[in-house]
């Protein structure tokens, strides 16, 4: 940390220093993921050698094979993927409708609703563990995807709605009106004109919702005790080794879990940054 790092661009603009600073940031951000990748490629013998090695001497994919055969990792992936995709779809659908009402229609309670949305985004969902557990139990939804999809949708609804409101407000009303003159209904115009034109916003909102759902742990751990319904984070955390925590297998499973989100982030990095910094956010 450099206490004197200024915000203007004259100081520290010497190339070697700038490269050093960049390197610090890159190492800080990437090292843990890289380290777990290295770990996953090492043989068990190499992992327990002392002193420890940094780069794998004889890279092997044995740990990956074991990760998929020792435990139903593919099923965990499938559960995570389905829960994340379905909750993202539901979040987008509900927040597109709500955002359109907030951006376009004359609502007397508009400010009130917007404040309520911001309040919900700071709401500690953990505190609702007991009542949500009871509700899911009463509705016979424990050990189903739905038990997770509904709360995850609420988790992302505020951010997505706020992002979409700001995008919808940027679409000229004339485009919508001419679609309606051509015989579109208002809802038709929303889905045929407004949503396609707001595609970047919809995408951004979707990625945030997906990452939120992919990352969630506590509810997934609490509501789905059936091992066949575990999501990836829960499945990997509850991996049981014969004696010690099976690090080689865990590290391979972690890499498998990191890849989908990493790909998403690499492809859509600019979108994600703009989405994160525009609306209210969950850390």
């Amino acid at each position, binding site marked *: 940390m*450099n206490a*004197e*790092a200024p*915000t*203007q661009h004259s100081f520290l603009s010497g190339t070697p220093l*700038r490269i050093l*600073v*960049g390197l*610090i*940031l*890159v190492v*800080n*951000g*990437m090292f*843990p993921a890289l380290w777990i990748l290295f770990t996953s490629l090492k043989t068990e013998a190499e*992992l327990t050698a*002392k*002193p*420890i090695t940094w780069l794998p001497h004889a890279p092997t994919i044995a740990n990956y094979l074991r990760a998929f055969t020792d435990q139903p990792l593919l099923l965990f992936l499938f559960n995570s993927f389905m829960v994340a995709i379905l909750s993202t779809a539901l979040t987008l*659908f*509900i*927040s597109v*409708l709500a955002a359109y*009402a907030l951006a376009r*229609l*004359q609502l007397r309670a508009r400010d009130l609703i917007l404040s309520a949305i911001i309040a*919900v985004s700071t*709401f*500690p969902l*953990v*505190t*609702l*563990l*007991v*009542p*949500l*557990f*009871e509700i899911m139990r009463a509705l016979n939804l424990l050990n189903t995807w739905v038990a997770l999809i*509904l*709360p995850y949708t*609420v988790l992302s609804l505020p951010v997505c*709605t706020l992002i979409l409101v700001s995008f919808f407000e940027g679409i000229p009303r004339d485009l919508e*009106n001419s679609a309606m*003159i051509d015989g579109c209904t208002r809802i038709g115009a929303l889905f045929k004109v407004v949503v396609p034109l707001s595609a970047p916003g919809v995408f951004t909102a979707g990625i945030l919702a997906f*990452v939120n759902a992919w*990352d969630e742990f*506590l509810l997934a751990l*609490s509501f789905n005790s059936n091992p066949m319904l575990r999501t990836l984070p829960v499945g990997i*955390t509850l991996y049981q080794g014969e004696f010690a925590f099976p690090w080689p297998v865990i590290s391979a499973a*972690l890499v498998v*879990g990191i890849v989908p*989100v*990493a790909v998403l982030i690499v492809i859509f*990095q600019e979108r994600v*940054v703009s989405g*994160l*910094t525009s609306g*209210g*956010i969950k*850390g």
Partner: protein
Amino acid sequence: MATASETSVVPTHNESATKWWTRFLDPSERTLAVLLLAPAALLLALIIVYPVCRLVWTSFQNLSLTSGVPAEFAGLENYRLMLDDPVFWETTWNTVLITLITVPGALFVGLAMALMANLPFKTKWPVRLSLLIPWALPLSFAGLIFAWFFHSEYGVVNDVLRRLGFEGVIWFNSANWAFAAICLTIIWKTSSFMALIILAGLQTIPRSLYEAAEVDGAGRMRQFFEITLPLLKPAIVVALIFRTITALQTFDIPFTMTRGGPGTSTATLAMYIHQNTVDFLDLGYGSALAVVMFALSMCVTAVYLRMIRAKG
């Protein structure tokens, strides 16, 4: 409702305007607003409003699913039990301590990272990606990866310590070291989010302000404290509110790193709520604990809101 439709910009349909399905597809403005907001409202009612009411109600109940006894009203019994429960105090204290350490920690590290990332790099994606990856990584993954980092035998942290000539530390056998490892992990995981928010704030500060300050002979430190920090304040406050509220809910990282151990020395309030609810099925007590956490996070929101309003 008729007046609302007159003020709308929707062109009136001449033909078949009276058919019910047309009216359903093209309703008046106010009806449409209600229809569009209904799914969100219903979902929030099911997942937030009703559960909050239920939470408060259950916290006054004697409701344990293991005892087989039907729920009965218990008044403040759960809250009285809580005051005498050393684990409640310990986990609450741990939660507060984690918040007090990791929120400022993430703010300072995040601020430093944002200032560094704001330099004019020629290729921007490596730095941007390095800030995004820790954010996108699941908390539980971060916990597992850092548990491996801090592994006493094969961990990279102890390896570096030994190479530097220190003794390795058995991190997870001692309450203090385990707590330190957890806090470091949380700071690493959350500081990049802080950095992203602060970086966005930095990029809105007009360069001309610094040029003017330069002309007036203000040094870099003065520029930082009198231009950069004050203009960053809104971004920092927003980031702090979210970070503090999520810090109070800390669960994933201690759970994956230590399961609260040794003993309950690194357990958080969220972990204790989870244990009482899911493991002990003592829903009454779990609810009372959750009400406390709810109150804590409401206090935080209130304090921050007052701060924003006071300083405008």
